[in-house]
């Protein structure tokens, strides 16, 4: 609680940040920052100094070679999130656009065309129905029988315009032909375009241009401009969230430590289920035993939106209460322990709920209250001081103090940011050392406000500006109250740095360090250290899954050494070098080898953005281990990575650790866990999800009646095909290839009598896996030579026919030979038994 007797020197400026530049890749290395006199004793012979950064820290070593999955994979299938390549424009223009610094080029047309293809009924439904007689999809030439039905649809105005006005009062047949478009030709053109997609010299075909020009204004159900606006807007949103998605800020993973110090079973709270909408509260110890889970439905009635936030019905409990089904994706799970009871706050976009979990083992979590917001909530934090008290922020700029007993109190409602203008609607709020004072944050900084008089009593705690030595463009990403280490300290992360702030010394960070992470740290976790020990701060990013372990200290100094103001607290210092921990994706290389496509899928799955971070400190005599849990967006696991390790018992005397070997192998136990996890994954999500309703096509629209006509006498091939179709439909499988099933024994191929038709040679070639060469040959220039070769072959075949009866069993090899001779077009192979070539 004491304030440090002396702080590290620093300049204090005011105003907007001066320092330019962006993310510096190595900015966190090599600096001591400042130094401070360590021993205050004036009578000591030599003064000693301590650095702000670079002092000795505890030595922690990873316990295993990579992260180890803790739970079986989330069985419900995971839909991969949007990747940049899905929505970015990839074509010839791209490089030009990049060169011109237009930023990212979004592939708008592709998205729109996907929409047209995926939802044709919605886009063209009614007009398609109206006009379908004007579209002809047959292959044969357009013939019109003179029937009133065909001429009935009056040509729509643009079509009518397309009809030459000179058209005389011709027969109905002529008119019908004029107002019907042959779609087959158009389709062919499109297919050809599709095939030449990567061709740099593709031109718009006049026919397509004509058609689109003609139909653009009226063909679409939804006006094209409007639709395009909507798609474009959504695309921009998707892109923005790809660049930086702040909805999982805070992380959807919490560890409730065991109540008794000796007990080993804490609880892990995490989202699961298909849409990450199941709240699982899992008792979990070192032995990682699992208990039964049930489902609880959470019915939420519609309530009128008369204010930003309304109270909602409680989720009722039924069955085993360790799992709750909520009606929204869980974005954040926050937890705090007050008076021996854990309070767990859960935030989804439009709902926030609070559960209480009493410390007794086996006690069931009870839902306490649910609120619904009309604007997505961006923050939910649980008070570490008072039971059942939470802070909620919404994207409309409102901050609420939520007490389970007394209800909601709106502290502030300001859509504007605090210190300068920033577009982000993200808001955050957390508790401070004073239970009645809340911190509230937006991207520009932090303020503390008294809930008893929120308008009058507030002060600035952190400002993106010269006060904290920020860079231009720096923004607050995640504030966190670090009351468990020091009751008045806060952690603030930005995309470039981490800051530790003290409420008693507002605006001036007591610690600042450039974290060098590739993405902004959205998750943070504090593991307080005991007296004389450093506090461990874990930072985690979402998209890149990075995990960083920092240590900092600011404890009471040994009272024996210093005279003067003995025993006062020292200023905050960063201890030891930062340490990177294994991410979820790191276990990929230790998983059993996979087929390439499975490996790809696995890579995608394990590389999914992280969604949360938690840690548990376990003490076992002198050994201490830190279990770090990381949750992925796929909702697998939380895998349990590493960082379990032991600090030396006396951290001050920690000698330099040995260098860890380059790539250690995982322990046998971990390997077993990997194998089990893989097995469960392939069992649970091996097959892609079946579409609920397979897409069907009316064949009548695609073929003419004549084409569909059944032949008078169905051939055996027909019969076979029908049989296979039926069989396939019964089995629910698919037909891999249409040719008849290969016979048990390869029939000796009869060399064709006389001239071989190109089809059979082609088939022969493809049988011999050399189709490509066959094709090349066919298109090659030396036709004459080939003719010669053919002639030769024919001669050979004639001869072969002569001894057919003798060499029946060799025919296959002969065909092979003949094939060879045909392939080597210029010179007949030496093996061929033919006479010397004659020209």
């Amino acid at each position, binding site marked *: *609680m004491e*304030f*440090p*007797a*002396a*702080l*590290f*020197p*620093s*300049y*204090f400026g005011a105003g907007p940040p*001066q320092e*330019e*530049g962006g993310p*510096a*890749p*190595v*900015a966190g*290395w*090599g*600096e*001591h*920052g400042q*130094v401070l*006199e360590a021993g205050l004793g*004036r*009578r000591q012979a*030599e*003064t000693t*100094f*301590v650095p702000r950064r*670079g*002092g000795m820290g505890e030595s922690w070593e990873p316990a295993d070679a990579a992260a180890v999955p803790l739970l079986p994979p989330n069985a419900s299938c995971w839909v991969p999130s949007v990747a940049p390549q899905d929505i970015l424009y990839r074509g010839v223009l791209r490089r030009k656009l990049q060169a011109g610094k237009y930023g990212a080029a979004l592939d708008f047309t592709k998205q729109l065309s996907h929409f047209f293809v995926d939802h044709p009924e919605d886009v063209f439904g009614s007009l398609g129905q109206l006009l379908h007689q004007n579209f002809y999809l047959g292959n044969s030439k357009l013939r019109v029988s003179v029937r009133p039905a065909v001429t009935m649809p009056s040509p729509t105005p643009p079509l009518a315009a397309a009809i030459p006005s000179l058209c005389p009062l011709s027969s109905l047949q002529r008119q019908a032909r004029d107002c019907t478009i042959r779609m087959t030709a158009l389709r062919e053109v499109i297919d050809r375009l599709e095939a030449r997609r990567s061709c740099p010299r593709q031109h718009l075909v006049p026919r397509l241009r004509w058609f689109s020009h003609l139909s653009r204004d009226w063909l679409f159900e939804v006006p094209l401009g409007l639709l395009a606006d909507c798609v474009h807007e959504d695309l921009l949103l998707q892109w923005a969230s790809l660049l930086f998605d702040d909805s999982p800020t805070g992380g959807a993973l919490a560890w409730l430590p065991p109540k008794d110090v000796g007990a080993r079973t804490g609880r892990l709270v995490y989202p699961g289920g298909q849409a990450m909408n199941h709240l699982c509260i899992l008792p979990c110890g070192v032995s990682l035993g699992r208990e039964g889970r049930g489902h609880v439905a959470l019915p939420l009635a519609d309530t009128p939106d008369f204010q930003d936030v309304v109270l909602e019905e409680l989720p009722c409990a039924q069955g085993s209460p360790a799992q709750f089904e909520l009606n929204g994706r869980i974005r954040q799970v926050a937890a705090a322990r007050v*008076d*021996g009871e854990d309070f767990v706050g859960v935030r989804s976009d439009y709902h926030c709920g609070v559960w209480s979990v009493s410390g007794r083992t086996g006690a069931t979590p009870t839902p306490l209250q649910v609120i619904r917001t009309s604007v997505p909530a961006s923050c939910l934090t649980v008070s570490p*001081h*008072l*039971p059942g008290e939470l802070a909620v922020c919404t994207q409309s700029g409102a901050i609420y103090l939520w007490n389970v007993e007394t209800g909601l109190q709106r502290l502030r409602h300001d859509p504007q940011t605090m210190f300068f203008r920033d577009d982000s609607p993200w808001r955050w709020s957390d508790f401070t*050392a*004073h*239970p*009645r004072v809340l911190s509230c944050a937006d991207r520009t900084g932090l303020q503390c406000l008294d809930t008893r008089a929120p308008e009058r009593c507030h002060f600035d705690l952190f400002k993106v500006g010269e*006060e904290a030595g920020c860079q231009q463009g720096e923004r607050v990403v995640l504030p966190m109250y670090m*009351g468990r280490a*020091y*009751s*008045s300290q806060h952690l603030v992360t930005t995309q470039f740095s981490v800051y530790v702030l003290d409420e*008693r*010394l*507002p*605006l*001036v960070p007591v610690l600042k360090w450039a974290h060098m992470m590739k993405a902004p740290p959205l998750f943070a976790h504090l593991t307080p250290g005991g007296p004389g020990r450093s506090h461990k701060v874990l930072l985690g990013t979402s998209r890149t899954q990075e995990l960083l372990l920092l240590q900092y200290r600011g404890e009471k100094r040994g009272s024996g050494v210093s005279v003067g103001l003995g025993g006062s607290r020292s200023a905050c210092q960063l201890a030891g*070098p*930062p*340490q*990177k921990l294994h991410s979820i994706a790191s276990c990929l290389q230790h998983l059993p080898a996979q087929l390439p496509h499975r490996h790809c899928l696995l890579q995608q799955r394990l590389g999914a953005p992280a969604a949360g971070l938690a840690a548990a400190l376990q003490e076992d005599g002198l050994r201490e281990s830190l279990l770090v849990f990381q949750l992925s967006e796929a909702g697998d696991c939380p895998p349990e990575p590493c960082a379990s390790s032991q600090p030396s018992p006396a951290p001050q005397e920690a000698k*330099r*650790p040995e*260098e*860890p070997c380059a790539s250690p192998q995982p322990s046998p136990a971990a390997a077993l866990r990997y194998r089990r996890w893989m097995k469960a994954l392939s069992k649970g999500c091996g097959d892609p999800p079946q579409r609920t309703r397979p897409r069907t096509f009316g064949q009548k629209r695609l073929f003419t009646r004549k084409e569909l006509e059944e032949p008078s006498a169905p051939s055996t091939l027909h019969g076979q095909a029908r049989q296979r179709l039926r069989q396939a439909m019964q089995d629910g499988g698919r037909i891999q290839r249409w040719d008849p099933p290969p016979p048990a024994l390869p029939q000796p191929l009869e060399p064709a009598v006389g001239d071989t038709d190109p089809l059979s040679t082609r088939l022969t070639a493809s049988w011999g896996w050399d189709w490509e060469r066959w094709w090349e040959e066919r298109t090659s220039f030396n036709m004459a030579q080939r003719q010669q070769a053919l002639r030769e072959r024919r001669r050979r075949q004639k001869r072969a026919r002569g001894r057919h009866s003798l060499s029946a069993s060799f025919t296959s090899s002969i065909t092979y030979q003949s094939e060879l001779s045909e392939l080597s077009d210029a010179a007949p192979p030496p093996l061929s038994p033919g006479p010397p070539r004659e020209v």
Partner: protein
Amino acid sequence: SSHEYKLNFKKSKEMCLSYIQDAMLQKQWKKAAEFLTFYIESLEKDFSTEYVSPSEMIWRIGTEILCHHSRSSMKEFNSFTEQMKSLGVKRYLKVCLEHTFHLLCNGLIDEAYQNLSLSESWRFGEQTVIQDKEMKLIKAYKGLLDYYNWSKQKNILLEHGQDGFEDLSVEQEMHSYFRKAAVNLKEIIKIPGVWDLFVKCYVDLLEFYGDHNEARQVLNEYAYNSKFPANPNAHVYLYQFLKRHGESKKSLVSALKILHEVVPSHELMIDFNIMLQKSKKRKRRRLGLEVIFAVLDYAGWKENVKAWSCLAKQVKQIVISEKHLDWIQQEWNSRKDWWPAFHFSRYSAKRNWQENESLSYEKALVAGILLGKGCKYFKYVSHQGCKAQVKRFRILKKFVNKHNPVYLRISG
């Protein structure tokens, strides 16, 4: 083509950097050092104009590796830093400053002093704002080291002075250190910032030479200039100075009152409360109650026996005298909706009783007066105390029962 070559070059350079970064973050310093040699080679062919220049990268990475590498020595570190100084003109001062810090942390004070005096005389073109700041810091640290030398000489003189022995040269040396230190320290503490260390040293110098007015002015400026950050230590130093010089109670109270307004949870508030409780003035005693209530609002003081005993003592006094019960009432009004859950829950009663008996005693007294004898905290603790046959708890129970009407008046 050359464009492709450049692209590939850039890629491999970035990859090399990320390998270095990974190795460093996994504490594989040897590996990082090997990669760094490759990286330096790649930089020889680099003409890109990025914000972070390659020489800064090498300096930062190299320094960090040398700080942790198991076989690095101070000599190597010094030679590396000297090379780095000559590599980048822009960062010369920064590198010097960091070099000094490293020397200081390793106890090489004389080398650090030499280093500082060398860099102090460095000139190159027009100074940027940052360079100007760095130069001032260099001077300030030099002043600080001068101060330490001064205080060493002073100690020698004082020791010898006791023996009745006087050494003029030592004294002259001491005075010259004083002049050098004072000039530089005075300079830096004019600029807005956190200069706790420098201010303390400067004030010490001034006090030794009897320039109390100057010292007071410096401390006042440091505490009350609005351009400076709201640093609680500034107020603390001023208060300590005033106390050292036996200033009037009035000025002490006013100094601490300002500190109370700035940081209500400061540890000096306990002293302040004790000082105010003793006062004969009603207004000061009233302020004392306010101060101690405010201290106990903060989570950090939740289990502090001293703070609770201060509050208990004052509350008890007021209750016995039955004067100024309205003071308690006023303080309690803004707290009665959350203090019971924050301080006086059954859970904390149990825990306090188990962990700290005297804390539970003080808290039970306050709880019994503020919340009546029916309060959970009081009931639990007094019951346990009587069960354990501790005398003071029995007296406490009697006291609270006797003064129960007070509770009715406060809550009414």
